[in-house]
């Protein structure tokens, strides 16, 4: 059986991964048009660099890494949005209201946009539920412990931000002007 040509490979990759990459791009950037551009750029780069991919079983992780790098490249150029600082959040979870039954997509996007990218990326990958802690750590080129610590703090922030109580009483992250 012959080796599938580049066109066939990428038709299959786009069919299989477009939606997940677009969602990831949207949650990272918060904009539909940016997400579309980032997803397109990701596949273009992947096509150029495909020969460098040694382990095709890791293609999904590889595509997500390319997308994140593309996002970071653009984000560095336009670093103008306000982010909440999690530097003072402790590693020991505080008591938070976990009575979260439903979450509004836009409200989630606002909360994500307030997080620094170093916290936003792992928490998005975590909630896509397909990436293990190890895979997230590999993608971000960070030690596993660092990723787990960041995830813990980012999740705690989201719980506070998205809990019904936050609707009436803003969470500490916003209330104490922790935005940096």
């Amino acid at each position, binding site marked *: 059986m012959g080796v599938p040509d*580049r*066109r066939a490979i*990428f*038709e299959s990759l*786009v*069919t299989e991964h*477009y*939606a997940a990459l*677009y*969602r990831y791009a*949207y*949650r990272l950037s918060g904009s*539909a048009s940016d*997400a*579309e551009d980032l*997803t*397109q750029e990701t*596949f*273009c780069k992947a*096509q*150029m660099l495909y020969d460098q991919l040694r382990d095709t079983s890791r293609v999904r992780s590889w595509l997500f890494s390319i997308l994140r790098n593309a996002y970071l490249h653009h984000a560095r150029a336009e670093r103008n949005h306000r982010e909440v600082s999690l530097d003072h959040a402790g590693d020991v979870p505080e008591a938070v209201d*976990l*009575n*979260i*039954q*439903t*979450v*509004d*997509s836009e*409200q*989630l996007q606002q909360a994500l946009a307030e997080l620094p990218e170093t916290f936003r990326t792992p928490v*998005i990958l975590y*909630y*896509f*539920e*397909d*990436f*293990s*802690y190890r*895979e997230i750590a590999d993608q971000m080129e960070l030690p596993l412990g660092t990723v*787990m610590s960041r995830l813990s703090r980012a*999740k705690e922030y*989201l*719980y506070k931000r*998205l809990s019904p109580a936050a609707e009436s009483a803003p969470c500490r992250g916003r209330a104490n002007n922790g935005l940096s």
Partner: protein
Amino acid sequence: MDCRSARLLAEFVRPAEGLPEAERQKILEQLQDCPELALEFSAQQRADAAIARAMRDVPIPADGPAKVLAKLALMRRKHARRRTALIGSAIAAVLLLAVGIGYWQVSRPAPLDLDLAGVQAAEALVPARVDAWLAKHGLPAGLPTVGNRRLDYEALRVYGIGTFREQPTPMLLLSRGHAQLQLYLVPAGRFDLTGLDQTSVAVTSRGTVEIVPTPGNRRVVVVAILTPGATLEQFCEPIPLPEA
């Protein structure tokens, strides 16, 4: 297991962590040992599920994949065109190089096609032995003259049978510095030398070809091949200084 340990293990029950199902169930059971943690874990799972649903709740543009595929096809066509141009340029460069090398090979002075045993030892180049060799081949003694000056035995490096018009022919090789003179002593009867008159001079890829006039000897025609820039006079005996 205490609640603190159970809390740490709870992090690894997500299916994405890839724990074997038996181990996963074991951790879940251990979580039940701590009722407070079990409640918290259950609430957290519900909250996480709600956030995960919202996280994936992103409308996907229907034409997105088609746009990407079109862009990728365009890139592949551009890449193919660039590669074709690159290959074309490489072929052109190789051809140009080949033509250049070919021209250089043709235009440089050709190596002498001598069929000699090797460069003669110094004792073989003494005039008497050279004259004896010339006589052996039915040639008049002494090196040919140019005008009224004789070619210099001092400049003689090699003599023997060379190839002239694909025929074995007595040949002498003289040199001074970088200049070289190849002389074929051609028996007139053996070759059709019409067209080669006593004044013929030609410039070829091998150098300048001249017919050295041999007045009084119609049996031999001396064909001289000089490296570019050299003259016959360079290989003659020095003009003796007039006596004071």
